[in-house]
């Protein structure tokens, strides 16, 4: 047993030594990595990244951070929340597996999003030890999200495929612009929830991959190089740009998701804790699913 432990530790050290020796950035590859010398046509990703990061990324994140909640505050004040009876019958919507997977992802996001914002606005926190700690937390929370993102993708994909209800739902913005309780065309998940699902899972996977690229920085994976055809630094630049872009989408929809579950539909958050949705809520907000359940005699 000891021998194996020793061997695995020794191989770890060897692996990290090889890591350091074959730098993809600062050794022989440095020439490919340096932008703009003579004849090699550059993709111009360096200036593009510099321009975006210097002038736009933090500003857009600030706009999302303030703008999205502001719109919802206005919605809450003008139109107000939807209130459904919590005394009626209940419909079982989320299995225990669904709920565990969702909760792990939820906790990960609760760590990932504030730590990401703190890094984006790092200068206002003075940088240094505190922001460094937030950066490490951002990396740790990625691991738990990485574990559940594929189960989450698979467990809901059947219900998340687009259908005609989604177009109708989009046309009336899910009925959230009126105070009336009229049945809204939607299956188990409405078009808004579906958008969030695809951004959170596929977008989340892009976030993990681009984040890992930036975290490991100097690595040599033949497949990545042959697939992208990019030099290591250009790969990092693409990763940074994509990470910021998808970050904006994920954050904006995350805020929406929280607003819907906590404020816009009173008490809706309980469904992901207990697994049961209110019958009246399903009848109105997921009318197609309600009809289907009724036809199958499940209610």
């Amino acid at each position: 047993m000891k021998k194996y432990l020793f061997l695995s530790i020794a191989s770890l050290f060897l692996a990290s030594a090889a890591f350091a020796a074959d730098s993809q950035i600062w050794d022989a590859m440095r020439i490919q990595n340096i932008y703009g010398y003579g004849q090699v046509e550059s993709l111009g990703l360096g200036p593009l990244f510099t321009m975006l990061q210097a002038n736009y990324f933090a500003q857009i994140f600030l706009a999302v951070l303030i703008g999205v909640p502001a719109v919802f505050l206005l919605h809450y004040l003008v139109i107000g929340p939807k209130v459904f009876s919590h005394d009626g019958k209940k419909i079982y919507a989320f299995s225990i597996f669904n709920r565990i997977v969702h909760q792990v992802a939820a906790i990960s996001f609760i760590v990932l999003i504030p730590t990401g914002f703190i890094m984006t606005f790092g200068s206002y926190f003075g940088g240094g030890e505190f922001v460094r700690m937030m950066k490490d937390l951002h990396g740790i929370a990625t691991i738990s999200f990485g574990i559940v993102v594929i189960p989450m993708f698979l467990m809901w994909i059947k219900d998340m495929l687009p259908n005609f209800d989604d177009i109708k739902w989009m046309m009336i913005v899910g009925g959230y612009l009126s105070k009336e309780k009229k049945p809204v065309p939607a299956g188990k998940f409405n078009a808004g929830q579906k958008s969030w699902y695809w951004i959170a899972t596929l977008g989340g996977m892009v976030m993990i991959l681009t984040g890992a690229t930036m975290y490991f920085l100097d690595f040599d994976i033949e497949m990545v190089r042959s697939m992208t055809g990019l030099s290591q630094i250009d790969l990092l630049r693409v990763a940074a740009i994509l990470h910021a872009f998808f970050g904006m989408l994920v954050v904006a929809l995350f805020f929406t998701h929280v607003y819907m579950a906590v404020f816009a539909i009173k008490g809706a958050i309980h469904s992901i804790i207990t697994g049961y949705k209110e019958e009246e809520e399903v009848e109105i907000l997921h009318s197609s699913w309600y009809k289907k359940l009724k036809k199958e005699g499940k209610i």
Partner: protein
Amino acid sequence: MSNNEMARMKFYCDDQRCIECNGCSVACAEAHELPTGVSRRKVITLNEGVEGKEFSTSVACMHCTDAPCEQVCPVDCFYIREDGIVLHDKDVCIGCGYCLYACPFGAPQFPRDGAFGTKGAMDKCTMCAGGPLETNSAHERELYGQNRIAEGKVPMCAAMCSTKALIVGSADEVAKIYRTRIAAKGKGVQSAPYGWSKAYSN
């Protein structure tokens, strides 16, 4: 300097003189006691094997005008001295790597000193001007290396360059030497120094 304005410090590597001895790189690493795996200055050979076009040059942080690294840093750890030297505060740096993505020369490097191989604070050439800590203090020396500029000395790499290919000094002085050399040669076309169009275009 004849006027009161601060001199603008620049690096110039004469690629007709560089013999790829790597002395600058070794001198720098030794003078600043850099950790293994970090070399602030590196000699690269371009167009290797292409007859008549091959040349070597020494690359480090060029201390650019409007330094891209300074523009992208999310924690604003960079500061640019009056003489144009671009420095950074390692106690503020979070090791995110953005400066490396912005840099046209691949200058910023990240020693992996944290647990689980997290990137430590960025390290790069300081033009031998230390950092924001007390000049020539033990702490400054430990984090940033020697502060030769404060002592009135030439940066280590240029001081030891055997062919005097690598020159560092005020823009005026460097330009004077550059012109004298071209005039002395008296033939051929001399292109602008490698990297200058990226570093000092503004």
